[in-house]
């Protein structure tokens, strides 16, 4: 059956909103995606029918909630091609990356060691590494960026040394959309025995991810960027590594025994889940991934690619517009600048027309510095966007040029 964007849109109630009385053109999907009705229903059902604390086994509702949450974990495992012990609930990607930086970092890093990241990382994949490097005496090395917004992976040979213990790179760039060749990176990192951590926040909503195939050691993503709720995310880790590294936070849920002298840790994945988890969020995320896996993902990808191609064509014809990160390996993100205008002004005036984009440095200040720009305007597409949305963006931009 052919892909029907109108039918898809009816599943997303928020898309019917009318900011300032105008039809919503939502192009801020890299910040967060809208939620299909099935996700909203799953969260509501949890609070109406299943609410109870999990893993206590004390009563009927407790069992229902535990079952629902563990079913969601199994869904995530199947989504990533992992096993359920390797799926850890976190607050989101940032929380997951903090967990890895702390637990893996404190386990493998010592003075003189290096963590290799890339120029296009989100602050969430930079700052936690800085912190653990400060504590351990390790240092950060950076894969440079080429002018087209792709990573200079040919320099890996020089950047990876016997001192490199961890490589932490985004699967796709939030600011530019560039998809990085993780499989190639893993292969090179393996040769020197470095662990590979992947920030998948901007990848999972766009294309299928198979952690076995990538062969990365850790993979992190957020629920809310893949049609699920906020406040829930996932850290995948290879089982033997998760067994080996110390816990991150401590307290309830994650312990096996406690005395005043010492404690022992619960088995995987609970060892990394201190405190009552975000049960409703986990169930909502399970519903979102189930929904996504039911879609024809090839068709979604082709639709998104058509949106990006249409937007890129508009951009090339737009006087004074410069695409930031102009390459052929991108998720549906058009980051741009218009000569003589400030991104913040462009964003404000698009908003007045009901068009939601993101402007600024996108939490990638080192990337913006390397490009010599203060920020960009970013239109980020989801499968529920239409070619008309893209046209509306450019009509809106042309209108703005009368002001600026």
């Amino acid at each position, binding site marked *: 059956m052919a892909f029907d964007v109108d039918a898809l849109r009816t599943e997303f109630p928020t898309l019917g909103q009318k900011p300032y009385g105008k039809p919503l053109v939502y192009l801020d999907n890299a910040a967060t995606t809208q939620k299909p009705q099935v996700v909203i229903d799953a969260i509501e059902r949890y609070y109406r029918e299943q609410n109870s604390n999990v893993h206590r086994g004390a009563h009927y509702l407790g069992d229902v909630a535990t079952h629902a949450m563990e079913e969601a974990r199994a869904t995530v495992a199947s989504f990533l091609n992992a096993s359920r012990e390797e799926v850890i609930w976190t607050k989101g990607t940032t929380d997951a990356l903090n967990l890895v930086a702390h637990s893996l970092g404190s386990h493998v890093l010592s003075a003189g060691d290096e963590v290799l990241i890339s120029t296009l990382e989100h602050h969430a994949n930079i700052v936690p590494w800085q912190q653990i490097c400060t504590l351990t005496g390790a240092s950060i090395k950076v894969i440079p960026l080429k002018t087209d917004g792709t990573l200079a992976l040919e320099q890996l040979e020089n950047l990876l040394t016997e001192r490199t213990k961890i490589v932490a790179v985004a699967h796709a760039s939030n600011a530019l959309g560039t998809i990085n060749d993780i499989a190639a990176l893993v292969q090179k990192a393996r040769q020197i025995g470095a662990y590979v951590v992947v920030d998948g926040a901007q990848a999972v909503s766009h294309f299928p991810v198979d952690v076995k195939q990538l062969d990365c050691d850790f993979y992190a993503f957020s629920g809310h960027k893949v049609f699920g709720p906020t406040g829930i995310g996932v850290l995948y880790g290879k089982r033997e590594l998760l067994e080996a590294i110390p816990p991150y936070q401590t307290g309830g849920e994650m312990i096996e025994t406690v005395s005043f002298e010492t404690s022992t840790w619960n088995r995987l994945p609970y060892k990394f889940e201190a405190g009552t988890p975000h049960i409703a969020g986990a169930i909502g995320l399970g519903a979102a991934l189930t929904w996504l896996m039911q879609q024809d993902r090839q068709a979604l990808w082709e639709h998104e690619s058509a949106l990006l191609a249409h937007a890129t064509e508009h951009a090339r014809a737009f006087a004074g517009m410069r695409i930031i990160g102009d390459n052929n390996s991108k998720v549906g993100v058009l980051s741009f600048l218009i000569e003589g205008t*400030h*991104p*913040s*002004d462009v964003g*404000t*005036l698009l908003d*007045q027309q009901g068009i939601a984009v993101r*402007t*600024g440095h996108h939490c990638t200040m080192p990337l913006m510095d390397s490009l010599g720009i203060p920020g960009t305007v970013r239109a980020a597409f989801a499968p529920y966007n239409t070619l008309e949305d893209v046209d509306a963006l450019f009509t809106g931009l042309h209108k703005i040029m009368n*002001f600026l």
Partner: protein
Amino acid sequence: MSNETSLGSSTTHEDIVDTLSFFDDWEERYTYIIELGKALPPYPEALKIESHLVRGCQSQVWLHIEVNDDGTLSLYVDSDALIVRGLAAIVLAALNQKTPQQILDFDMQAYFQAIDLLKHISPTRGNGVQSMVERIRHEAQKRLAA
């Protein structure tokens, strides 16, 4: 001593409220806001330094404050974004050339609510305008305590 702008003297916050209430579409409103930004007093280039920078996620603001002989404050503001300059001008219409007490007594929230621009000074908004207002109030507080 004034800082060579009508903002806060012949252009008052009442004028701004009156004028903005007159427009009914966003194009007129934002044309006016951008125009207001042109009335900002010239910001001294030499003072575009780190200590005068108010950072936002999307844009940044420069702020310099001078104390006049009569105890009023002269406010100098600049920004890299036109609309932020306009919003700064709207703030200056209320706070420029005022005494610290007048500055602290002024209800900025109510003012921005009245002109339907409250979202631009919400604490989560990254344009630096809210932080600029806080810095001006902080300075006024210091002057009052001195």
